[in-house]
């Protein structure tokens, strides 16, 4: 097995390669505006660093968000094209699941929230029982509006850090790392766990303003 994992749903453009027993290479850059430029070179770097060839890839795991649309689509389009051309499966993983997985939390430590920045004063969020078990979400809301439901829970991720007042405590990891995504995906593959289709979780309708009614150019 050689699984390529990447995620572009947050400011991180993050890539990792997993050989079935461990993560063998990775490449993460934080730049919210350059997903399109950084992703494929990042994949090339990860392959080169591991001394592996793209033709050896057996699986792709891609973060399907939720995330701001433009960057998110870069990851999904790249995953679909790679999967299509290489003839290998593309497994979708909720980006927040990868963030939660990276916390390594157990059920004994209690439930928690993973949250990323959704802009427009909102967060993408989900509630977890432990690093592998999502209880609620993903959703997109103002942090203050979900504060009652998540009262007293610790929170992880850049979305939580932005609105720290809404959570009991805030801790890292700040951004999702494809290494965690890769490990989670390999675990799910081995345990027969379920994946999402490689469809973006936009969670919002497109901004589409119907133009105002036709305005006459000659004043009445």
């Amino acid at each position, binding site marked *: 097995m050689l699984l390529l994992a990447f995620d572009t749903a947050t400011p991180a453009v993050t890539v990792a390669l997993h050989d079935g027993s461990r993560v063998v290479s990775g490449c993460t850059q934080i730049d919210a505006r350059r997903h399109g*430029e950084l992703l494929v070179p990042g994949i090339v770097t990860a392959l080169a660093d591991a001394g592996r060839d793209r033709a050896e890839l057996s699986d792709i795991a891609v973060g399907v968000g939720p995330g701001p649309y*433009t960057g998110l689509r870069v990851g999904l*389009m*790249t995953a679909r094209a790679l999967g299509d*051309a290489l003839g290998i499966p593309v497994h979708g993983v909720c980006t927040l699941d990868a963030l939660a997985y990276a916390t390594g939390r157990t059920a004994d430590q209690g439930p928690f929230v993973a949250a990323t920045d959704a802009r427009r004063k909102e967060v993408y969020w989900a509630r977890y029982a432990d690093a592998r078990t999502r209880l609620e979400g993903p959703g997109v809301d103002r942090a203050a509006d979900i504060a009652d439901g998540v009262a007293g829970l610790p929170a992880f991720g850049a979305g939580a850090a932005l609105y720290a007042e809404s959570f009991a405590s805030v801790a890292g990891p700040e951004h999702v790392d494809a290494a965690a995504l890769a490990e989670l995906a390999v675990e799910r593959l081995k345990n027969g766990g379920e994946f999402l289709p490689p469809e973006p979780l936009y969670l919002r309708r497109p901004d589409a303003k119907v133009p105002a009614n036709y305005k*006459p150019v000659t004043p009445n």
Partner: protein
Amino acid sequence: MAADEPLVLGIETSCDETGVGIVRGTTLLADAVASSVDEHARFGGVVPEVASRAHLEAMVPTVHRALKDAGVTMADIDAIAVTSGPGLAGALLVGVAAAKGYAMALDKPVYGVNHLAAHVCVDQLEHGRLPEPCMALLVSGGHSSLLLVPDVTSDVRPLGSTIDDAAGEAFDKVARVLGLGFPGGPIIDRAARDGDADAIAFPRGLTGPRDAAYDFSFSGLKTAVARWVEARERAGHPVPVADVAASFQEAVVDVLTRKAIRACRENGVEHLLLGGGVAANSRLRALAAERCEAAGVSLRVPRPKLCTDNGAMVAALGAEMVWRDRAPSMLDIPADSSMPVTVTQA
């Protein structure tokens, strides 16, 4: 068709068309287009986020439709070309990501190309290699330019362009004034067939002796049409839609062809090429033919399907770059929404 000519797959997503074309050299093998135009119609214009979402969904199926139509497999492809600009940023990004993904997976070079140069180059698929130099009148929903083209892969010189609305934009806006729907170009073209082009004397923008010889302006014309229609309505008279459409269309194509012929004459260029969505206009094609004939200029116009946005035009330009041994683009090329026409390759 020579077997040693490059087999190139071209991807176009600068606006609302997901285009995937396949060419071998200057031979068209496939031209698959999925359009989200119906999703935009009720908004009266292209909604960028709606277009971008549609590109993501349409891309892989459209690639496969093109491969099937061309009767080739992915492994046969020698290079991938993609529109890297200009256009809608989010929409371009989907095509660029797809192109890089396919190129990386297939271990083939990728060429990020200029959308406008591709509109010019597409004519090679129909009429063979472009004469050098040629003059190109590029008229679409986003652009109206006169380009002097010594080499479509590396040397495209803008002589003039619109200072306000693009020609296609004017068609779309006037269609709205007349309540005819979106996109307006084809509808006005059709409506004008039953109208009298001399019925109303609409203004010809930027045609005075002191005006820039090769620039265009269509916003005054659009306003004049709106005023005329509103005055009729206010007076309680019916609006003669066919006559308005024909007279408006005549004003646009009269200026376009006049300036294009003048550019050819003043620059000693013997070949005029039309490209872009508005080049699908039947009256523009007819008047250009008439005036070129009179001026001794040869006219090249691709069939309407190749004038509107498509992937074949991108493949055509990519194939020409491969043919001329141009170095491919890097895998870190951005989508450049305002890529200048002078930059033919990213």
